[in-house]
Structure formats: C-alpha cells, structure tokens
C-alpha cells in the first residue's frame, strides 16, 4: 500500500514537472500567516487551495490547466509589508489574481497601491470595514464577507417595516459601536426615520441611570442599544426599565444572547434585533468537505475563503483565459444570477457548463451574491424576544 502511494506520488510529481509552465496558472493567496490572526489563516488558505485543487483535478479548467497557489504574507497589520508581498506576487510570480487580503487595513492598502493600479483582481474573504466600500477600485476589488455597515442597513429596514419612525441610539464607545451607530443612523434617516439622540456609553460602569436619563430626555419611545449583552448594554437596559424611561428596545448582534433574557427577565419581551447568520444550504456540504480535507470546519471565514478561490477559478473558465483583465470581467457573471446554481464541491460541474457557453450562479458555502460594487450582502436574521427566548422572524 505504502509503495503504491509512493509510486503514485512520484508519478504525479513527474507528470507535474513534465507539464510545461504554460499549463500552470499561478494565483496569489495573500493572508496574514504571521501577526494577530496567524491562528486563523492556515485554515483560510487551505480552504481556498481546496477550491483550486478541485478545479485543477477536474481536468476541465481551460483545457486541463492546473492552478498553483502562491502564498504571501499580509501580516494583517503592516501595510508596507503587505504591499511589498503583493508587489512580489504580481511582478515576479506573475499571478493571475489574488485571493485576499484578510484584515481591512492591509486589504485597503494592497488594493489601492498594488492590485488596482496593476489591474489584478482581489477577492477578500474577511475584510469587513465599511470604508472598503468606497475605495476607487475600478471593479477590481471584491469581498465574500459582508461589510459591517450592512447590519445598520438591515436593522433600519426592520424598524421601517415595523413602523418605528423615531429611536434614541446608544452605542458602546469603540469602533464596532461607533461604526454601527453611524451606518444605522444614515440608513434610518434615508428611510425617513428620525434619530432623537445618539450617545455613547462606556462599558464596565456600576450605574447607567445618568446615561438613561439623558437618552430619555430626547423623548423617543424606542431605544436602540448597540453594545454588549454582558457589559454596558445590559446595564443600560436594566436602568431603562428600572426608571421607566424605555420599555421598547432595538438590539444589534452584540446584544443578542440568552444570558440577556436571563438577566432582564420578561420585561424584555417584544425587543427586536438583527444578528448575522442564517446558515445556507451550501454550508453543511462545505463543512463535510472541509472535515475530510482536515480543515477546521467552523473556523471563521473558511467558507468565505473557499468561495473566493472558487470564484477566481470559475471566472477564469468563463473568460477562457488566465488574462487578468478577462478574469475581472467575468466575476460578476459567475457569482450572480441568472444561471445554473453551483454548490460547494460542484466546481467541476460549473467549469463544464461554462466551457460549453452556459451561465452559472455560484452559491457556494456562504450564499454568494455580489451587489454592484462587488460586495456580498450577507444574511441577517430578524429576531424578536417572545416567550423568554429570541425567535427568528425573518431572514434578510
């Protein structure tokens, strides 16, 4: 058995080297293999490479070409290092496209300084900063994880559909809370709503009655709390109920969890909120594949990484070449409807349809659908507190 394995490996190696460089397509996998998220990136890279392998092994990609992933270190935090790594990928490795980068800061730097000027597409699996929505990318930057701004929009839509026209907003004083309060505020105002007051709160205080007093003075009936359920957010809700200042609450994802209901009790009934999630059909298929390949299936952004890799392979097939600009022109077509739906593990099927001139709609592990600026919208659950637990009302 061992011998057979060795022999086949040898054979594979020989055929590999026998194939000329012309039969290979290099794709950059630019992730932070060192730095703050170094524990997550090996699984993310392995997921993207799983998609590449699937495309290569089918033998259908551009008439039998193989994808060779080239890893480069984005460091997650050091923009200069990430930019240099991307330069190397493009000029000396000659890659056709970039899967990455990971953290929002370095992703923006690489997109602005290297990828877009050189006309190379980037598909980031994990950069979620709202700021990346407005970079001048000429259509070369995509992401398979939703922007943080998206939840603000969804929450504003939920309130609008429930006829809530005026709210007071309090947020935990950090980037998450501030960003969410900003995106919710602008989306709610565009929809005709009114924000009576927006005030930050600090976590870890003993008493929030003064904060609640100021919030209630603005005169709204609804209080939107963008904080943490075991921190200041809980304190704000408790103090609101104690003083009778608010009885109706709107909650963001950081506030949604059963411990909040346990702490507050039945007074929380009727509170509405949104939380990212809603597992797609493709997710479980992908998890089985990942487990087989030895990838941590519930790690963050692994499904998004697989989808980013698959999209690059499929777009290449649709373009009929590994030309950088040609790949860019086909991403939207393979990712979005109309067309045959492609689930994870069905890359070969997608390649086949594309080679015969058909159209596909890649669904993948995370229900990919890009908007006009190349970002996925993601799915959010609308939840309401009913009978002592958070019940899902609707999927957005």
């Amino acid at each position, binding site marked *: 058995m061992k011998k057979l394995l060795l022999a086949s490996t040898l054979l594979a190696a020989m055929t590999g080297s026998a194939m000329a460089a012309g039969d290979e397509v290099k794709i950059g996998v630019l992730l932070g293999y060192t730095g703050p998220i170094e524990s997550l990136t090996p699984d993310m890279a392995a997921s993207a490479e799983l998609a590449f392998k699937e495309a290569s092994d089918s033998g259908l990609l551009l008439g039998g070409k193989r994808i060779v992933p080239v890893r480069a270190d984005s460091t997650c935090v050091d923009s200069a290092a990430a930019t240099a790594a991307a330069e190397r990928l493009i000029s000396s490795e000659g890659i056709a496209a970039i899967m990455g980068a990971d953290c929002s800061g370095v992703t923006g730097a690489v997109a602005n300084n290297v990828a877009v000027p050189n006309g190379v597409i980037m598909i980031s699996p994990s950069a979620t900063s709202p700021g990346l929505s407005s970079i001048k990318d000429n259509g070369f930057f995509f992401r398979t994880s939703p922007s943080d701004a998206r939840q603000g929009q969804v929450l504003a839509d939920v309130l609008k559909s429930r006829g809530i026209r005026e709210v007071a907003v309090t947020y935990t004083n950090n980037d998450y809370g501030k960003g969410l309060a900003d995106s919710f505020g602008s989306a709610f105002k565009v929809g005709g709503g009114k924000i009576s007051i927006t005030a*930050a709160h600090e976590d870890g205080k003993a008493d929030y009655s003064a904060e609640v007093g*100021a919030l209630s003075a603005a005169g709204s009936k609804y209080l939107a709390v963008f904080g943490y359920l075991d921190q200041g957010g809980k304190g704000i809700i408790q103090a609101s109920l*104690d003083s*009778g200042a608010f009885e109706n609450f709107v909650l963001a994802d950081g506030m949604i969890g059963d411990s909040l209901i346990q702490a507050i009790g039945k007074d929380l009934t009727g509170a509405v909120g949104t939380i990212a999630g809603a597992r797609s059909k493709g997710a479980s298929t992908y998890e089985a594949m990942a487990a087989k390949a030895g990838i941590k299936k519930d790690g963050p952004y692994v499904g998004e990484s697989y989808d980013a890799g698959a999209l690059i392979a499929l777009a290449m097939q649709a373009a009929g070449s590994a030309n950088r600009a040609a790949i860019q022109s086909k991403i939207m077509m393979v990712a979005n409807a109309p067309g045959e739906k492609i689930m994870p593990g069905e890359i070969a099927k997608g390649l086949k349809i594309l080679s015969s001139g058909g159209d596909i709609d890649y669904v993948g592990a995370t229900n990919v659908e890009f908007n006009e600026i190349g970002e996925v919208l993601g799915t959010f659950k609308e939840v309401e507190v009913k009978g002592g637990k958070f019940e899902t009302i609707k999927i957005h």
Partner: protein
Amino acid sequence: MTDVFNAIILLSNFVIVPGLTYGSQLALGALGITLVYGILRFANFAHGDLMAFGTMVAVLITWWLQSMGVSFGPLPTALLALPVAIAVTIAMALFTDKAVYKFYRKKRSAPAVFVIASIGVMFVLNGIVRFIIGPNDQRFSDGERFIIKARAFKQITGLNEGLAIKVSQGLTIGITFLLVGAPFWFLQRTRTGKAMRAYSDNEDLALLSGIDPERVVMVTWIIAAALATIAGTLYGLDKSFKPFTYFQLLLPLFAAAIVGGIGNPLGAILGGFVVAFSEVGITYAYKKFLGYLVPESWEPDGLLQFLSTDYKFAVSFIILVLVLLIRPTGILKGRVI
C-alpha cells in the same frame, strides 16, 4: 397644573431620587474618610478598597445564606449579612493598623508618609478582593426590587411621567438618615467621643490628661470600617458590586470630604450630597423637563445638557479644584490640606 406635576415627577425620577441615593452613599463613605483624617491626621486612600472588602464579605455571606435558603422577606438578604461583614471588616482595619500604621505612628512620621503607606494598603486590599471574588460584576441583591414602579405610579396618579423608587434606594436613604446622627451623638456625648476630639485637637495634651491613644485609634478604625461596609454594601445593592468601581469611588469620596471641610463630619455629609447632585444635575438633559413648563413655542431644540454623561467623573474633579482654589477649608470650616 398637571404639567407642573409632570415636570416635578420627571425631575424626581431622574435627578432627585438618584441624587439622594448616590449622595447618601457618598456621605457615609466620606464620613469615614473625614473621621480618619480628623483623628489620625492622614488622607486614607485605602478607604474605597476597604468599602470593597466589606462589601465582598457581605456578598459572600449573602450567597451562603441564600444557599441555606434563608431570606429576609421583601428586603435584601444582604442586610442580614451586614453585621458579620462589619465585624470582619473591623478586624481587617485593625489588622492593617497593627501591621502598618502603628509602626509609623510610633516613629511620629509625617502625614505624607501615612498617605503613601495607605496607598500601599489600598493596593494590597485591591489584590485581596480580586483574588477572593474576582474582578467581575457580582449580583447579590434579592427580595423585592421596587417600592413603587414607574408604570404603577402612572396608573395611580394618572400623570404622564412615572416615578420609580427601588427598595435599594429607599433603604440607602433611610439607613443613612438613621446613621449620620450616630457619630455626632457619639463624638459630643460619650466619654470616648470626647477623648477622640481631644486627641484630634492636641495629641500630647490628650496624652497628659490620661487619654489612651491606642484606644482612640482603635475606636476610630471601628467606626470608619463599619461606615465603609455599610456604604459599600448599600452601593452594591443599588448598583452592582465590581471591585474596580469601588476604587473609582475614591475620587468623589475625597471630593465630598474636602468640599464639606475635611475633618468635619457634618461637612462630609453635606459634601456627599453636593457632589452627587452636581454629578447627576449637570449631566441630566433638561429638554423634557422644560417642555412641561414653558409654552410649546418656547420649547428648546437642544437637549439642554450641560455636560455629556461621559464627563461625570470630571465633575468631581472640577469641584475639587474649585474648592481648593477658592475656599481651601471647605464649605463648613475644616482643616486646610
């Protein structure tokens, strides 16, 4: 006329009742600080953490009582735990005195040395509390939560605005009013109290008249520790128990003691309420309140909030600086720091 009532109730709910409660808690704490300052002649920085220590003991005993199925009807079980907690805290205070302050007293060290030593004690107490109960929020209140709920108040009175009074708020204000008289009676009427005042005025002279200084010191610590435990437990019942917030209380406590005139017990009580009402009053937004009182066309657009609630702690600082600049002896004449 109902508008006037609405305005009064609104202000009571968000300013007066919370202010009275917080003021009471500060007054009890500041009383301990001022007593130690007046008699032992140093600013005890460990007082906030002595409060945390006392409250921690009360919390642990409350949990034990709760696990035994003991309760105190509508009142919080912590009240039953309080006497034991006070005893343990007194023991702790006397132990630190024996272990630390006595040495410097023998050497007749300068007050600054005592202050630095008390900072050391503060860190040790800080560590002990975190080591035993952890740095997180602990809940230990039980029994009824409210004397009257906002919604019930609205239904009874038919007003727009509700007034909520928590049991913990009622207890805090009630216990404080019962307790604040006790130190005065003790200092003015009892033999030991008179001895303490004599010791405070002139240590050597007191010694000559046959007053035992160690006894005076001991009684001072007993009173200070008892007040600290009661203030801390009431604060914890009303808000929540978290060691760090007790450390932060040190600033408003000292502000209260200094504003009132440090070393003067009446001043500490007055100072507690001055600081509490400044903090609550300056950070409250008066828009709705004025909305009830003035004609609609005059109604202000802004929130009428002098300072954002983020700056609550700054209020204590400002008061402290102003008092030290303008009237270093405090409102009621205390000692000059």
